[in-house]
């Protein structure tokens, strides 16, 4: 349905332009997009291609720079074999999934609740509280690392899964994003729902939430990326190697002096990136015109 309206909208916009102009525009646009794609995808594609080389080949073909620097001359899956059958990477991956899922779920719940309250509800000190909570967005983790560790330790959570995601699940960014999204919903919808007899929570759940899906998709994606790529905090808070997350595991492959695990390193980087790109693509459909356009005239 959504794509239906999209194409209609596009036709309407495109109609006045003569046909040749559209073609030329499309060609230029497509070329531009291709350049953009290459520019942004290159490093990831590079590491994905490198993951198909043996560590020795990576070292051997790194210099001098030839095509084989990028493409695997002797493609092999040995790195992936090593990753999953020797390095037990799947366990680290599972830990990352748990941490990310926890963080995303809590972030969505807390951010939407708070975002809605800040956007739509009336209560004393609302804006002051909002500003205060936003301040936390400025705090770099490096600075509060030790006090935060002590807080989490005090809660008895060191080396537990909740320790991985709880501290960053309440996100000022998420609150800001959701507040803005809720603010963009016409106020009349709330009024209509109030007259229709919906309570505040019902309005939040049935009216407001379904209309901020693009923002929700952004929130989910960003929180997922942040937690998926977290490094310093998991490094500090997790002591049990079997609970350590994938990024730290990958850093472990990188750090072994004089004994590079470049192959598994690139394989790990690739494996870790795939779920993120997949989620990003799955969530893409929420960035499609037409969700909000006609509910209100």
């Amino acid at each position, binding site marked *: 349905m959504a794509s239906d309206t999209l194409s209609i909208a596009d036709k309407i*916009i495109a109609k006045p332009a003569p046909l040749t102009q559209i073609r030329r525009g499309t060609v230029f646009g497509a070329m531009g997009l291709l350049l953009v794609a290459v520019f942004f995808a290159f490093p990831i594609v590079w590491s994905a291609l490198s993951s198909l080389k043996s560590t020795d080949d990576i070292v051997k073909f790194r210099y001098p720079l030839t095509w084989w620097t990028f493409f695997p001359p002797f493609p092999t899956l040995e790195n992936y074999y090593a990753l999953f059958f020797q390095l037990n990477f799947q366990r680290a991956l599972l830990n990352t999934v748990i941490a990310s899922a926890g963080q995303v779920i809590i972030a969505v719940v807390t951010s939407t609740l708070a975002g809605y309250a800040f956007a739509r509800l009336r209560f*004393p000190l609302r804006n002051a509280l909002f500003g205060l909570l936003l301040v936390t967005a400025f*705090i770099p983790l490096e600075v509060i690392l030790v006090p935060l560790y002590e*807080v989490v330790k005090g809660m008895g959570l060191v080396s537990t899964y909740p320790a991985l995601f709880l501290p960053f699940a309440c996100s000022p960014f998420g609150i800001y994003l959701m507040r803005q999204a809720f603010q963009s919903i016409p106020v009349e919808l709330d009024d209509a729902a109030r007259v229709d007899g919906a309570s505040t929570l019902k309005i939040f759940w049935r009216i407001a939430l379904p209309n901020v899906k693009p923002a929700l998709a952004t929130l989910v994606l960003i929180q997922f990326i942040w937690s998926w790529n977290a490094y310093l905090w998991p490094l500090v808070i997790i002591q049990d190697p079997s609970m350590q997350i994938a990024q730290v595991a990958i850093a472990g492959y990188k750090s072994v002096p004089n004994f590079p695990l470049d192959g598994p390193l690139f394989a790990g980087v690739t494996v870790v990136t795939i779920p993120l790109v997949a989620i990003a693509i799955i969530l893409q459909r929420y960035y499609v015109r037409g969700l*909000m356009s006609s509910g209100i005239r």
Partner: protein
Amino acid sequence: MKFPSWTGNPTRRGELVIGPLMILPAALGLCIFQFWPLGVAILNSFRAFNPFNHRPNGWVGFGNYQAVLADPSFQSSFWVSLIYMVLMIVIIIPSALGLAILLDKRMPGTALARGAILGALASSEAVAALIWNAIYQPNSGLLDVIFQTFGLPSQPFLTDGHLAVVCIVIMTAWKDIGLPMLIFLGALQAIPPHLFEAASMDGANRWNKFWRITLPLLRPSLVLGLFMTTIAAARLFTPIQILTAGGPNGQTSNIAYFSYAQAFLFNSPGPAAASVVMMLLMLVAITIIQARALRSRSGI
């Protein structure tokens, strides 16, 4: 009456309770995991520390602040922080907007480009910095090899202070642009197409439409993008650490890196905390200035 008049609204009276309750989970989380440690950090900025185990062993008042302010490398870091901020905003916001507009259209390759940008966003900062390190390296780096191929002289990408700042910003922009782009894209998609139709009928050309319709309607998203980019720029750390470690001659070190170095390299938690408190103050000030500027311009 004790409360302002709006408490009299019978339909919305419940919000007095429900509002704070809805904020509670987030507020609680932020209090425990952000404000409490931040409070400790602020206290630490007034303390002296045992340099071996980093435990506080006395109060020094504003001593840490004085020490930090007198440190030329802090002064330099302060300006470098501002430069990062300006550069990142100037580079990221317009290009993110441009990309969002490009990807808003349905053309062959849109999905590919979108996937690539999100892929860059999805790559971890450390990995991205390592890969870009390989790109920027003198002699053997990809860029230099390309330059050599075209007979151009080798460039001191990471070894010239000014160029290194730009290189760090470009790498960060490459990685971070996806987020504002997503936000802009979402906002673009929400603009009703009939507005553009109407504008076309009013004789607006593309530039007019962009300037008069797209941009004003995108304003909330632009504010959000600006806010996030400012924060990202202020907290810029990993790329600095991996690409230049603050050098050459401290020319790429910002306050975040300075503070990190004080805490983790120079065993000086007090000055580290003091520099961060100053950074926070600076950021809050900048954000307020930004908010004011944007508000007054739109006349709201």
